[in-house]
């Protein structure tokens, strides 16, 4: 449809093509409900539709990847306006990441229902499902995709709400579990408070810069900074405050310190499929958004300003504290879900370290950090799906996720114990596993950028020390599986689907650590290149 006046505007079909993954996801959400309207509430049917939608989404994303090609494209805004959504390699990576994860989660759910149906006479705790469950899961996925694919602060807020609100509900999906209800309440309260702070921060930014477009905010801010630098070093405190308040919402999603309190309780109380989903997707989307914000600000501030330096320091300190707190708190946990929850906090800390690089003075350094995070996230997905998947199989069987449920697993279920051990060693970051590759790329990125920012060496040291600490609690689980045994415990009968998922994860982790070590780095570097860059607006005038 052609454009008329400024009064109306419909997106062109080329633009809609660019955002077909989101449209596919929306279509899947509607389809799950429509089929339920006709066929009644059949959880497995809904699961199949959701799975189909996720696979279609992968295809749509592949299509977008071809269209995007070399450079990022903006779109879905009338001509002359800054784009509402953007499509570049980074966002394509995240869409693919989320679709694959979605498929894995639904697969896990399907094996879970089979497992539970095999044995249970009454409905066991942790049995969740129904069309609503999948609608909520898919909607939160949609929100996360939008979070990473926009530079508009309004879209970012709405995307974060779209990611959060369904998550609150699915955490309490198992209405028999008191722990689940408590977890959902804690999640809602934390989420609502952080969302309120974030919206307040955005309102401050809008009041300061008169625009909701993050690119324009970044340009205006850097222009202001450079003007000030000519005279005295002024700090734009309102800008910093707005940014910090915006950061609270992002940090909540990543579950980094100081907004990490919800994480262990929610992970423990939620059904294990949802724990897996939140531990990976929520963190990935939050990190993606953080990287997007930081690259935009750092990219606009050519040569770096007083403000970007402050921002880099803030992120670096938060990252260091986050991974230390996560690792130290994990040492004393007895529940495997909680151990993995604190481990995910620690890993969020490692990944946030890369975000501190992005504000490096040299403009080229930007991609180093993003490619490190992309590589890390890929491996993190496999490690966490493997570890949580194996934990899920054991938990469904034993009815508890206490460490004692893993006793003698090496004898009772070697096909769970071995891949779980691989995933755990990979989470530590030992060679020759994928986790080592991820940490290696991260540390190399930090080291190469340390030429410009010497304090990054501090982060390298903290990351290495933390890796050593983390060895203890991961090995505790492994020790429980292989070195303790109770001959009275029977062997585990587990569904084949779950075993396949866990073992595939372990094998790919092994492959990444050995054969695909350098391909991973190259691929990640390619995905991190050619981000969408805001074209400089023609006339940006500052008021005195």
């Amino acid at each position, binding site marked *: 449809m052609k454009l008329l006046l400024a009064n109306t505007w419909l997106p062109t079909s080329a633009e809609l093509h660019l955002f077909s993954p989101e449209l596919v996801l929306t279509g899947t959400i509607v389809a799950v409900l429509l089929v339920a309207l006709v066929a009644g509430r059949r959880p497995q049917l809904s699961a199949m539709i959701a799975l189909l939608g996720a696979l279609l989404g992968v295809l749509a994303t592949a299509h977008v990847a071809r269209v995007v090609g070399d450079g990022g494209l903006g779109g879905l805004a009338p001509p002359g*306006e800054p784009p*509402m959504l953007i499509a570049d390699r980074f966002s394509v990576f995240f869409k693919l990441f989320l679709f694959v994860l979605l498929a894995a989660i639904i697969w896990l759910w399907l094996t879970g229902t089979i497992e539970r149906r095999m044995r249970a006479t009454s409905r066991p705790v942790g049995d969740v499902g129904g069309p609503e469950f999948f609608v909520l899961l898919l909607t939160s996925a949609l929100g996360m995709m939008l979070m990473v694919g926009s530079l508009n602060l309004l879209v970012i807020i709405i995307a974060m709400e779209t990611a959060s609100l369904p998550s609150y*509900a699915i955490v309490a999906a198992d209405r028999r579990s008191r722990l689940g209800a408590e977890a959902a309440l804690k999640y809602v309260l934390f989420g609502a408070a952080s969302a309120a702070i974030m919206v307040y921060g955005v309102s401050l930014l809008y009041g300061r810069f008169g625009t909701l477009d993050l690119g324009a905010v970044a340009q205006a801010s850097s222009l202001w900074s450079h003007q000030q630098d000519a005279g005295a070093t002024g700090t734009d405190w309102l800008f910093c405050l707005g940014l910090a308040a915006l950061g609270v919402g992002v940090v909540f999603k990543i579950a980094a310190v100081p907004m990490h309190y919800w994480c262990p309780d929610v992970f423990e109380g939620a059904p294990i499929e949802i724990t897996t989903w939140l531990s990976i997707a929520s963190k990935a989307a939050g990190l993606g958004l953080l990287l997007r914000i930081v690259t935009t600000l750092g990219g606009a501030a050519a040569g770096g300003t007083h403000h970007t330096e402050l921002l880099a320091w803030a992120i670096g300190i938060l990252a260091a504290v986050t991974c230390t707190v996560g690792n130290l708190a994990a040492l004393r946990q007895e529940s495997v879900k909680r151990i993995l929850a604190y481990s995910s906090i620690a890993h969020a800390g490692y990944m946030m370290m890369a975000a501190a690089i992005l504000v490096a003075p040299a403009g080229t350094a930007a991609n180093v950090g993003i490619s490190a995070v992309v590589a890390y996230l890929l491996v993190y997905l496999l490690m966490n799906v493997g570890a949580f998947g194996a934990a899920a199989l054991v938990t469904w069987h034993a009815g508890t996720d206490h460490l004692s449920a893993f006793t003698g697993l090496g004898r009772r279920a070697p096909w769970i114990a071995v891949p779980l051990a691989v995933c755990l060693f990979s989470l530590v970051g030992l060679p020759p596993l994928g986790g080592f590759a991820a940490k290696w790329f991260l540390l190399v990125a930090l080291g190469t950028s340390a030429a410009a920012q010497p304090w990054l060496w501090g982060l390298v040291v903290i990351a290495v020390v933390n890796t050593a600490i983390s060895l203890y609690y991961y090995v505790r689980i492994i020790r429980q599986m292989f070195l303790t045994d109770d001959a009275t415990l029977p062997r585990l009968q587990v569904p084949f689907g779950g075993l396949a998922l866990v073992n595939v994860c372990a094998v790919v982790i092994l492959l990444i650590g050995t054969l695909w070590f350098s391909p991973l780095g190259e691929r990640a570097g390619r995905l991190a290149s050619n981000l969408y860059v805001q074209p400089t607006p023609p006339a940006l005038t500052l008021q005195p």
Partner: protein
Amino acid sequence: MTGEAIAFYLLAAVVTAFALGCVLASNIVRMALCLLGTLGGVALLYFLMAANFLGAIQLIVYAGGTLIVIVFGVMLTSRAYGTKLRVRPLEMIGAAVVTLALLAGLTAILVRTAGPVVSPSTPDFGVAQIGTELLSTYLVPFEVISVLLLAVMIGAAYLVQPEKK
């Protein structure tokens, strides 16, 4: 002082008083009533700024809708009425310190900052203008909200549906 300034300070005082009442009340129904006062006062502030549509929406959605949901929440909770929500003095002092520090910090920053770096493009917010913006520049958020509202409805229904026997 102009009439506008007088009206602003009066309304601001009323809103602040209600907000304090909402926080300090120990009866949950009174809290809800104070919240109504706060939300209504904010709507009047919008009217004062000639943001008529926003003020009307504030009254309809917040003072009308959200508050009803809160009152329903109270009614649906057994024994909520008799319960006195008390805050221990130590918690009260802690909260007061944090709040006052935040207030002081925000005031200091706002006083130091001269004003907007770039002024907003148009100060035009008639309903027709809002509608046009909603259907052109802000079409994406507009459509995303539909999915969000769908999820909210489905999520609410999911959480209250009875436990299968």
